[in-house]
């Protein structure tokens, strides 16, 4: 079946360093969503990308959707301790987009002050 893979599984950085997590799908995605889960919390929706090559920014966070719509990335500039958590990408379960979301296993980010 379709898979959504994320790398790395875990990364720790010094506060102020940049961070990137990558998401790869085995099939073309109609859209991709990104979520953040703080330790002990629940996943919270961050953003949805729909267009090939799309780039969206939210303050220090930059999200990209690949040209082939099979990969995506989340880049955080100058990390802060408030960025700590696990970042998940999720895409529809089959090409065409009208199926349940498949979540990646997530990238856990630790930020050392």
């Amino acid at each position, binding site marked *: 079946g379709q898979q959504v893979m994320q790398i790395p599984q875990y990364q720790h950085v010094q506060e102020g360093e940049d961070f990137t997590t990558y998401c790869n799908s085995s099939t073309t995605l*109609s859209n991709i969503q990104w979520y953040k889960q703080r330790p002990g919390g*629940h*996943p919270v929706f961050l953003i949805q990308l729909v267009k090939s090559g799309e780039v969206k920014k939210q303050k220090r966070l930059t999200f990209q959707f690949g040209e082939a719509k099979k990969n995506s990335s989340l880049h955080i500039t100058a990390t802060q301790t408030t960025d700590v958590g696990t970042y998940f990408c999720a895409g529809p379960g089959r090409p065409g987009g009208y199926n349940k979301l498949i*979540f990646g296993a997530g990238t856990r980010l630790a930020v050392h002050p």
Partner: protein
Amino acid sequence: DAGITQSPRYKITETGRQVTLMCHQTWSHSYMFWYRQDLGHGLRLIYYSAAADITDKGEVPDGYVVSRSKTENFPLTLESATRSQTSVYFCASSGTMNQPQHFGDGTRLSIL
């Protein structure tokens, strides 16, 4: 999100017992989902519902039962709990299948 609530927040039970986890949303969202979260597996879909009285299996449905008699409620039942079902369970809802999902705070379930 205040609009989706799960209960209980924590539950400890024994193998073989029946357990029901509750989920209630106030947005009138059509879609509701149940996930389990285990280390190394991310979020895995157990069951979902597209509307009242319409439910379908997800990735890991075995050992679970759901119902949706009202749009706002989507209970998840473990008919005979096993230790492998120890996990954190999240309920979520969305307006359509591909719209962003809103998650509840989760239920941490331990089966001894």
